[in-house]
């Protein structure tokens, strides 16, 4: 019997090649999409799970809750927190820090700018990253040691064994007292004591070089490590809890620890536990659940995971609907066979088994094609996503088995309805005339077409909105000019006495328009602090960025001066000698008379216009009182996703960490080479770290643009599958209406009347699909756009455009059938029956 069913199925496939092709093509494409999405989701969900013994690991994350501004969630936490937790919370089994520090690594006469992970000596015993050489218990036994990743070791030493080799590490000098030239230029020879297996892409950790924080090369000042409870300075804190410990119970015990650390005086009356809220994120969930600022690697998100899962499912559903629709529409072609089988004794269940088997056979064939397509396209997919997703049938046998099971389930579900329809034929009605009336529910078939096009139109609207939002964000007025700006990091490696000389040397190049120092630049405010400020005499305070800038910073970036004047070195009071608002010694008034700039958002928060704010005194911090010399227009220094926050601009040279260089267009490579050469002449021991500001700007949109491209791709696939199905159903329907059309033509219908008739028949489901898709798309896109501080509105044209495009595509799909039938000879049509 199985052989008979198989032969019947294969011969039917061969006989009706077009419909077989449409079904197999639709299912193959749908399955291919679903497999690619499943591979992506598997990769996203696999982050860090491969690290042994990490089930009870957590990352401690701090959220600042400062007055007058939204909660500020960070991926980092204060350094001293872990020691206190280890000492006072029994549920905490062990802890480990990781602090990324910018360094120059010299190997022989070669220099490399690197980010080094400075870790606790027990780090590799807490987070058990695999070592190729060396023992995790002893690699950091000696303070002046370093562990390299395999690829880093190859970069430095080629194929030679790196163990025992010496590398010289020079810091950025960021934590050095600016007058301590020994500290700034300090070079530390370190011995390679271990080689780390290259970290795979699916980890939130970034660690190509690790050195212990017992080394002299660690720049984190002891004072910071012990006492800095209200800043994090890039410290990633990990704890391992004892099995069975509840994270909430651990967090509850933090309150008393925190409130002992810094008294209310230091926080303007606030307790630390009011200012700081903590969260323990499971190690395995860091990649997906942590949208906090300052992650080591670009985070994923559950929204993306859920979104893509739904899209994959929808595309598969569209393909399955195709199958159901075509199978039932064409059922009349098999009416005679089915009736005969019933006549000779087949029961309905036997027929259901036969047709389900045909559905499964088609599904398995489609799956084989889909797997082949996945193999061929996987490298392109990886390249696009910038990942190394693999699919090995043997080692990923469980994934393959799940894929086959899903395909079989999809095939079975798609085949159930056609099997029920086909097996329900009444033989008496069929066998006399060898024809059958319309099979299955026409309403259901139309509903399936509506569902398919609803999905396609919904995805189409989403793609239009995503691209529109990206284009809007890219073209927004940022409040500053971003073109032609080079950012230099690690300025702290320059001796203070050499900073101005360096800037002059750069300015002497005619291709360089201007240079300006700061501790923050657009899209990188990592070193910018935040302090509650208020107008002296008023009670309302809010937290503001305190951005250290040299006086030429606003002009370099083309920031508008709305009122007052710019800062200038000609005005002695425009430059701070101590950190603003936190004067040393305490309680002195050294800030008085010092001038600052504010942005328009700060003026507004103070309750003034720009003009009114000039000359007012701001109080803040420990005892700072400064005067507003000018008001700048708002600038989106935080990027385009966040609202503009109030900012106070101060000239405090001690804290400069970055240099902005505006270059003229033309001969950019030569200008960059000049910058590199000048840097090297001033700081021979430190590798230059520079980037173009526009590259960072482009990087802000990379993830969204990739999403938009993927959306567009999925829209194309969903529409293609829907059109394949529509093509098949239209062909069949046109044939079935041949007699009716012949009669119409005999009575005077023209070709265009017939074409209009057929086009209208298939326009109705598409129009209904619009009515279904529009409200659903509006609801979800409205919520997605609310995640952007600056966003487009949902223009009705987006919806109309997507709907019209779907309608036109549907017409194009079916017009060939309509024309063929409309132009046929009515005599031949009337002989049809």
């Amino acid at each position, binding site marked *: *019997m199985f052989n*008979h069913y198989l*032969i*019947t199925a294969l*011969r*039917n496939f061969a*006989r009706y090649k077009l419909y077989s092709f449409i079904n197999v093509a639709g299912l193959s494409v749908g399955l291919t999409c679903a497999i690619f999405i499943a591979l992506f989701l598997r990769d996203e969900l696999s982050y860090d799970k491969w690290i042994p013994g990490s089930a009870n690991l957590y990352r401690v994350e701090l959220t600042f809750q400062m007055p007058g501004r939204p909660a500020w969630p960070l991926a980092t936490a204060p350094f001293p927190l872990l020691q206190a937790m280890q000492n006072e919370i029994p549920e905490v089994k062990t802890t480990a820090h990781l602090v990324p520090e910018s360094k120059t690594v010299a190997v022989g006469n070669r220099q490399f700018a690197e980010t080094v992970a400075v870790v606790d000596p027990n780090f590799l015993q807490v987070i058990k990253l695999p070592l190729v050489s060396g023992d995790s218990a002893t690699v950091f036994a000696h303070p002046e040691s370093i562990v390299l990743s395999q690829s880093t070791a190859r970069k430095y030493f080629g194929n030679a064994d790196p163990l025992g080799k010496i590398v010289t590490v020079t810091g950025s000098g960021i934590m050095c007292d600016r007058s301590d030239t020994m500290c700034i230029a300090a070079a530390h020879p370190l011995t390679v004591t271990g080689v780390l297996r290259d970290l795979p892409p699916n980890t939130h950790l970034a660690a190509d070089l690790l050195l212990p924080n017992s080394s002299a090369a660690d720049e984190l000042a002891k004072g910071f490590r012990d006492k800095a409870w209200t800043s994090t300075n890039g410290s990633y804190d990990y704890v391992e809890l004892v099995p069975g410990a509840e994270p909430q119970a651990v967090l509850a015990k933090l309150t008393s620890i925190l409130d002992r650390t810094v008294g209310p005086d230091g926080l303007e009356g606030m307790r630390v536990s009011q200012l700081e809220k903590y969260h323990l994120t499971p190690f395995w969930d860091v990649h997906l659940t942590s949208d906090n600022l300052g992650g080591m690697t670009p985070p994923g998100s559950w929204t993306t995971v859920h979104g893509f899962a739904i899209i994959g499912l929808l595309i598969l559903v569209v393909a399955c609907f195709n199958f159901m629709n075509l199978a039932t529409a064409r059922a009349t072609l098999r009416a*005679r*066979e089915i*009736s*005969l*089988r*019933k*006549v*000779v*004794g*087949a*029961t*309905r269940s*036997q027929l259901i088994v036969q047709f389900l088997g045909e559905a499964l056979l088609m599904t398995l064939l489609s799956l084989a094609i889909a797997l082949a397509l996945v193999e061929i396209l996987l490298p392109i997919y990886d390249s696009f996503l910038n990942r190394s997703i693999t699919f090995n049938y043997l080692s990923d046998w469980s994934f393959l088995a799940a894929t086959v099971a899903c395909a079989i389930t999809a095939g079975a579900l798609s085949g159930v309805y056609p099997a029920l329809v086909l097996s329900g034929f*009444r*033989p*008496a009605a069929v*066998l*006399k*005339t*060898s024809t059958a009336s319309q099979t299955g529910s026409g309403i259901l078939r139309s509903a399936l077409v509506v569902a398919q096009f609803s999905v396609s139109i919904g995805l189409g609207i989403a793609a239009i909105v995503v691209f529109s939002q990206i284009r809007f964000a890219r073209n927004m007025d940022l409040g500053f000019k971003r073109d032609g700006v080079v950012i230099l990091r690690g300025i702290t490696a320059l001796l203070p006495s050499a900073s101005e000389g360096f800037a002059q040397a750069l300015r002497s190049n005619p291709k360089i328009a201007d240079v300006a120092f700061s501790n923050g630049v657009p899209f990188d405010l990592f070193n910018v602090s935040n302090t509650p400020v208020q107008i002296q005499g008023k009670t309302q305070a809010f937290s503001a960025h305190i951005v250290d800038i040299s006086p030429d910073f606003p002009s370099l970036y083309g920031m508008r001066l709305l009122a007052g004047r710019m800062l200038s070195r000609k005005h002695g009071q425009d430059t701070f000698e101590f950190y603003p608002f936190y004067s040393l010694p305490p309680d002195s008034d050294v800030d008085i008379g010092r001038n600052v700039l504010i942005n328009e958002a700060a003026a507004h928060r103070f309750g003034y216009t720009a003009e009114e704010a000039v000359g007012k005194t701001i109080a803040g911090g420990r005892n700072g009182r400064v005067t507003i010399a000018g008001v700048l227009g708002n600038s989106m220094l935080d990027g385009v996703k966040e609202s503009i926050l109030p900012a106070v601009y101060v000239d405090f040279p001690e804290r400069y960490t970055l240099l902005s260089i505006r270059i003229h267009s033309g001969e950019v490579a030569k200008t960059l080479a000049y910058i590199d050469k000048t840097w090297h002449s001033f700081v021979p021991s430190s590798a230059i770290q520079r980037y173009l500001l526009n590259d960072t700007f482009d990087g802000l949109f990379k993830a969204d643009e990739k999403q938009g491209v993927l959306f567009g791709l999925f829209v194309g696939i969903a529409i293609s599958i829907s059109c394949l199905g529509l093509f098949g159903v239209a062909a069949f329907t046109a044939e079935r209406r041949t007699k009716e059309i012949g009669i119409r033509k005999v009575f005077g219908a023209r070709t265009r009347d017939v074409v209009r008739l057929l086009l209208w028949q298939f326009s109705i489901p598409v129009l209904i699909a619009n009515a279904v898709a529009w409200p659903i798309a509006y609801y979800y896109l409205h919520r997605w756009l609310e995640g952007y501080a600056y966003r487009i509105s949902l223009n009705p044209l987006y919806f109309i455009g997507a709907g019209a495009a779907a309608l036109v595509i549907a017409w194009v799909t079916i017009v060939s059938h309509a024309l063929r039938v409309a132009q046929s000879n009515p005599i031949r049509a009337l002989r049809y029956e």
Partner: protein
Amino acid sequence: MITLKHLSKVYRTTEIETVALRDINLEVAAGEFIAVMGPSGCGKSTFLNIVGMLDSPTVGEYWFGAQNIAGRTETELSGIRKNSIGFVFQSFNLIDELTVTENVELALLYHSDISRTERKDRVQTALDRVKIGHRARHMPQQLSGGQQQRVAIARAVVSKPKLILADEPTGNLDSVNGEEVMQLLTELNGAGTTVVMVTHSHAHAEYAHRIVNLLDGAVVTENIRRIL
């Protein structure tokens, strides 16, 4: 073999009621050859469908041998059908995707008690009987009308049914092929198979033992042509 008592069939929609058969009382003996005649729309096909258990009466009794057919499930009816009844249709109704052999074998596939070997033997016997064995591997599209009908007859007899129902078996054939088909049916009847045939042809009706005339769903006359 077949007993119909006060059997009627009414087709009802929301607006129309059509009486296809009206109070039929008829008995068909085992081994008899019955021809059913009447104008178009008189209920001949409905009659055949009910006798063949492809449709069920609205009122009345239908006894097939000792079995009361009324109230039986579709599964039970298909079981009786496959074991006892063979069908021959005007439009042959062969499956285009199957060869001649496979078409004939179809009638045995749903008999789980017949082995593969026996199936093949019976198919060959049936093909030889209707003299179409030389076309065993051909597809139906490659055969003439008369040849296709012979294959259909082979399919009808391969399961050794007690009853053959033929719905205008010569309607699509020329006179020569029609005569051949009638000869086959007569031979089968002569071997003991009961035959109930619907026909428009008076000439072909003469092959029957008895002619039953229907008009407007009712039996109007019965003419005995030959003695059983």
